[in-house]
């Protein structure tokens, strides 16, 4: 076993005092976080909030600038947030009155090894700019998000259902007001017991 030898292989060495050290991403003072600092300076009106929980940073942005901010962070020389891990939504129906949905993108910087969560809150029926021009991988994630929540992504090349069938007419299942068993009657096989059960050899009873 080696002690921490392999950890340092990927770590980029940044001179101290430049404001881009790796420690600053995990500092208790969120205003020192490089992403927070940069976005506050460049998008003062559209960067809404930043929250830290369990060493994870969540930034809340204006939904209208969702794609623009992702573009900025991807193409920034130092931030290099170039990888979209996950994109999904959370139905906040039971937690607050408005807006209804939180669209959540887990983004990651492969060179800096920094994970980040970007959130934008939109209301039911509103649309949000699609991230497909920034990350091709957002294509299927947004299709799933539309399928499950009914959120529209502006500029998506092919926004149709993916997991459910194309003619699914029961709405969007991951919404909180959607019953777990669906809106239609649950089909029960052999409800009237018209089909006789076979007796088993061992018990002499129906199974």
């Amino acid at each position, binding site marked *: 076993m080696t002690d921490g030898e392999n950890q340092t292989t990927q770590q980029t060495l940044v001179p101290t005092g430049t404001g881009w050290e790796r420690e600053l991403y995990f500092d208790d003072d969120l205003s020192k976080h490089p992403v927070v600092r940069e976005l506050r300076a460049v998008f003062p009106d559209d960067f809404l909030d930043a929250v830290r*929980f369990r060493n994870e940073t969540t930034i809340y942005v204006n939904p209208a600038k969702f794609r623009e901010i992702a573009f900025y962070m991807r193409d920034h020389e130092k931030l290099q947030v170039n*990888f979209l*891990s996950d994109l999904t939504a959370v139905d906040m129906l039971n937690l607050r009155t408005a807006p209804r949905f939180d669209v959540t993108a887990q983004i990651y910087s*492969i060179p800096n090894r920094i*994970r980040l969560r970007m959130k934008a809150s939109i209301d039911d029926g509103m649309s949000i700019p699609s991230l497909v021009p920034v990350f*091709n*991988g957002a294509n299927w994630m947004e299709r799933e998000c539309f399928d499950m929540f009914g959120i529209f992504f502006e500029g998506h090349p092919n926004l149709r259902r*993916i*997991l459910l069938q194309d003619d699914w007419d029961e709405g969007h299942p991951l919404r909180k007001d959607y019953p777990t068993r669906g809106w239609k009657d649950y089909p029960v096989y052999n409800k009237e017991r018209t089909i006789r059960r076979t007796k088993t050899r061992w018990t002499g009873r129906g199974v």
Partner: protein
Amino acid sequence: MEPVKTPFNVMDSTQTEYSGTLMVEDEHELASGERVMTLNMGPQHPSTHGVMRVLLKLDGETVIECDPMIGYLHRGTEKLSETKRYAQIVPWTDRLDYTAAPQNNLGYVLAVEKLLGLNAPERAQYWRVIMVELSRIASHLVWLGTHALDIGALSMSLYTFREREMIMDIFETFCGARLTTNMMEIGGFSRQLPDGLIPQIRNFLRVFPSKLKEYTDLLSANPIWLARTKGVGVITPEAAISYSLTGACLRGSGINYDVRKADPYLVYDQLDFEVPLGQFGDVFDRYLVRVEELRQAHKIVTQALNYIENDDRPMMAYESAYVMPPHMGTMTTAEDMQRHFVWVIKGFSAPVGEVYHAIEHGKGEFGIHIVSDGGSMPYRLRLRTPDYVNLGVLPHMAQGAMLADMVALIGTIDIVLGSVDR
């Protein structure tokens, strides 16, 4: 120019009745006078590894467009998880990628532990590493066997399933189940290690390197294998990052991103292993990467077992309020019995907040995103399964590929439809 002859009866475009799974749906005239043929592959095609349907548009034998259709195995795990308590969800994660159930368990359990601020004891963490790496070997062996079977090396699956059987036996000794193991618990392991487990793992570790050599002897210099895999399905590094690929699909293109190194969880930062990288990003490179990962997984299990073999420290974080009290305490003290009762009937209330935890699954980054409203059930549980995201690159890879290579392209992504459809 003569129209392209097809081996099937080309149906009239006005006719709408379908007669089988493999058929021509419609035909269009191109400007050059050639015809585009729409071909349906699946959902019962043997090389789609489950039930996936791929709609192909062909120009002669060249694929010009490909549309994978998934969801035949959708069970709504995310919706169901909102009605289950935290400890009840672990068996549901078995059913995602059923060839690597311990890895799914681990991803979920680590996410919950992160939400709770709970740490499993060191011994449990090492045993988790051992089980997860064995499961990675099992998952890669299934991939190697079926992928080679698709391409035409029939005997490969007989070899790989022979060694996978040994791992299944180890799982059976450890937890009683072979496929859907339900192995990990929040807080560690509550049961003692069974007798005979360590000799069984030792026996596997002893025979596996020679078996691995058999696989590579059979394939790595095989001219048919090289012709079917080299230069096929090339993904550039830029495309791999842009399509959010993870696992061997990303590392086969030469991008060094392995969650075990980049964002170490468990005790991976204390173990010595290497991350193999590909050079050209084709099917053959991804094969080499996965074979090397088998070798590294063997190395990790050996190290972890050597370190933890003679350890007898506790395996469960019993000092925490979030785990079920020990059996002995439940049977002898009133306090533990009350805690046990409440834990079983109501579960525990998790803190308010949200976490995302990613692990390096055999197929890529397996992420769990939990939003908690302070109740005993997750408010929202998002399963980021690696093969769902990796499958999104198939239309990109298939453009311009030959029809005969489609099975190689689907196989190289390493999909399990239970994990894709959730």
